[in-house]
C-alpha cells in the first residue's frame, strides 16, 4: 500500500513471506474500513460493496507500490544512492505515484468488481468531471493515510536509532576519558608509593591520600558537570601534581600562576588535566634530570589564555608512543563548548621543552 516499509528486491524467502503477509493484511484492513464507511454513509448493499472495495484496494495498492518502486529506481539511476532513497522516494514523487496509482487502480479494480458481480459500476472515465474528482479524492484518502502512517513510523524509528547511537558514542567517549585520566600505570605507581608511605611517614601518607581522593572525585564527576571555576581547575591540577611529586621527587618542579581576577572564570572541568599529564609523560618523565612544569592563566583583551609549559625533552623526542587521545579530547571539548572561538596550539617552548596554549573567550 505504501512505499516506506518494503526494501525492494533484496529480500530472503522468510522476509518475502512476511512482507506479502503484511501487504495482504493491510489490504484487508483498508478494504474492510472503506466498506464499513460506504455501507454506513451511503447505505450501499454489503456484499457488493465488499467485493468492489477489495478489488479497488488491491489494485490501488499494486499500482501505487509499483509506481513508487519505479520512482525509487529512477532516482537511484539518476545517482541518488542514499539509504533513505532506497526506502522512500520523497513526497513529490510519492504523491504522483499515489494519484496515478489510484486512478489506474480504481479503473482496474472497478472492472474486476464488475466482472465478479456482473453489475456495471461506472469507471472514472464514464462519469462527469466533478464526480470523477470526488471519487478520486475519496479513493486517495486510504493511500495517503497509510503512506503518512508508515512514513512517520519510519522517521520515528530512524530518530530512535540515531538517539541510541549518539548515546552509545557518548558513553564510549566517557569511558575512554575516564581510562585516560585513571591511567593504570599512574594509579598503581601512586598506590605503591602510598603503601610505602603508610609505614614510613603516616602523616605524609594521609596528605597523599587526601590529594588522591580529591583527584579521583574530580575525575569521576568531571565529565558530568558542565563547568567549574578556574581556581577549582587549578586546585585539581595541584592534587594531581602533588601525587606525581611524591613519585618523582626533585625531578618535578611544579609552578602555578592564577591571577585573582580570573579565579572565578568558568572552564570545562579537568580541561587542562590531559595537557599536564602529557607534559609529564612525554616531557619530564623521559628526561633523566626532570624539570619544571608551569601552569598559568592570563588575560588578553577579552580572551582567557591558559598555558602549560614544561622544560622536558621537547616535541617528538618522547619514546612513549601517544594515542593523541588526550589532545584530541581537549580539542573536541573546546569545539563543543566554544565553536571556533577557542584554539589550542602546541609548540616548542622558547628555551627547551613544550608549550601548550589554550585561548578561550572570557565570560
Amino acid at each position, binding site marked *: 500500500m505504501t512505499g516506506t516499509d518494503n526494501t525492494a528486491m533484496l529480500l530472503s524467502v522468510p522476509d518475502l513471506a512476511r512482507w506479502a503477509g503484511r501487504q495482504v493484511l493491510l489490504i484487508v484492513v483498508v478494504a474492510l474500513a472503506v466498506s464499513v464507511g460506504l455501507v454506513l454513509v451511503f447505505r450501499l448493499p454489503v456484499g457488493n460493496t465488499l467485493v468492489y472495495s477489495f478489488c479497488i484496494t488491491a489494485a490501488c495498492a499494486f499500482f501505487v507500490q509499483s509506481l513508487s518502486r519505479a520512482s525509487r529506481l529512477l532516482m537511484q539511476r539518476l545517482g541518488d544512492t542514499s539509504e533513505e532513497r532506497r526506502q522512500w522516494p520523497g513526497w513529490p514523487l510519492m504523491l504522483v505515484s499515489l494519484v496515478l496509482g489510484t486512478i489506474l487502480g480504481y479503473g482496474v479494480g472497478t472492472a474486476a468488481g464488475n466482472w465478479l458481480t456482473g453489475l456495471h459500476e461506472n469507471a472514472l472515465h464514464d462519469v462527469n468531471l466533478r464526480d470523477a474528482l470526488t471519487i478520486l479524492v475519496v479513493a486517495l484518502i486510504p493511500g495517503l493515510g497509510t503512506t503518512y502512517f508508515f512514513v512517520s513510523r519510519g522517521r520515528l524509528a530512524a530518530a530512535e536509532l540515531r538517539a541510541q547511537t549518539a548515546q552509545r558514542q557518548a558513553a564510549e567517549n566517557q569511558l575512554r576519558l575516564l581510562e585516560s585520566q585513571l591511567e593504570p600505570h599512574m594509579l*598503581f605507581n601512586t598506590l605503591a608509593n602510598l603503601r610505602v608511605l603508610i609505614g614510613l611517614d603516616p602523616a605524609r601518607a594521609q596528605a597523599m591520600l587526601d590529594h588522591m581522593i580529591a583527584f579521583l572525585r574530580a575525575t569521576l564527576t568531571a565529565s558530568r558537570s558542565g563547568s567549574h571555576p578556574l581556581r577549582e581547575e587549578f586546585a585539581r591540577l595541584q592534587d594531581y601534581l602533588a601525587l606525581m611529586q611524591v613519585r618523582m621527587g626533585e625531578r618535578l618542579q611544579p609552578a602555578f600562576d592564577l591571577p585573582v581576577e580570573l579565579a572565578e572564570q568558568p572552564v570545562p572541568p579537568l580541561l587542562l588535566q590531559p595537557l599536564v599529564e602529557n607534559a609529564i609523560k612525554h616531557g619530564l618523565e*623521559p628526561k633523566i634530570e626532570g624539570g619544571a612544569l608551569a601552569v598559568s592563566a592570563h588575560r588578553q583583551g577579552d580572551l582567557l589564555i591558559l598555558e602549560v609549559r614544561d622544560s622536558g625533552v621537547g616535541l617528538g623526542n618522547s619514546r612513549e608512543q601517544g594515542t593523541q587521545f588526550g589532545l584530541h579530547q581537549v580539542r573536541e571539548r573546546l569545539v563543543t563548548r566554544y565553536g571556533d572561538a577557542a584554539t589550542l596550539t602546541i609548540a616548542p617552548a622558547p628555551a627547551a621543552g613544550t608549550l601548550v596554549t589554550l585561548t578561550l573567550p572570557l565570560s
Partner: protein
Amino acid sequence: MNPSALIAEDEPLLAAHLKQELARLWPELQIVALAPHGQAAVDEALAKRPQVCFLDIRMPGMTGLEAAAALADEWPDDGTPFPLLVFVTAYDQYAVQAFERAAFDYLLKPLQTERLAQTVQRLKAALQQQQQQRQPDLGAAVDQLRSLLGGQLPTPAAAPLRLLQVSLGNSILMVPVDEVLYFEAADKYVRVMTDGGKEHLVRVSLRELLPQLDTQRFWQIHRGTIVRADAIERAVRDEAGKLTLHLRGSADKLAVSRMHTHLFKGL
C-alpha cells in the same frame, strides 16, 4: 661471599622500600647499587657485577628491558655469571605475559611482601644451582632476552623508506636507501655511510629510523648499527667467538653484538 644485587628504580621511595624489604627477607643480600635510570643501571652493573638485578620497566632514558639488553651485549667474557634478572612493573599486561613466556621473574607494584618472599626463594635456589654448575649462563640469558624483546618490536611502517633526506646547508640531498652501506647511531643523529665512502648525518635517532626500514634488507646487528644485508661480504668469528662483518665496497668492519649473533648461523 655474600650475594649482591642492584636495584634500578626511578622513584626514590619505591627504591628505598624495595631495599628495606629485601634487607628483612634476605639479610645476607648486599645491595651494591641503586640506579635511578636505565643507563645508570647498565654502568653500575658493569662496574659492580651484582648477581641479581631488579629492573623497573618504565624509567627515564632507557627502559628496564633496554638496559637488560645493553647489559647482555656488554657483559664481559671473563666467566662472571650474568646477573639473574627480576623485572618490576606497575601495570603492563603485555609485559607480564612476555616475562612468563621468556621465563623471567617479575614483580608487580605495589610490592606484596609475600610475593617478594617467593622471588627471594627462587633467586636463592637459582644462585645455589649456579654455584654448583660453575658455568656462565650468558647464552641462555641472551636467548631469553631476545625472545622477550622480539615481541616488543615496533610495528613496521606500511611503506618502507626509499629516500633519505639529508640537510646540507640550505639544500636537501636525496640519498636512496639502496646506496646505504650501514647506519650508525651518533648521539641524537644517525651517521649514514653510502657506496663510495660518502658519509652523511641525518637528524633522527636509530630507534625512529628502524621501523621505517625494510627488515628483510636492513639488519640491526648492534644496538647502534643497522647494515644493508646485501652489502655484507662475510662474517668472521674470532677465537673469543666475536663476530665481525666485512663489507663490499668499504674497508670498514662492523662488530655484531651478542644480542644479534643469531642472524649469522653459517649454513
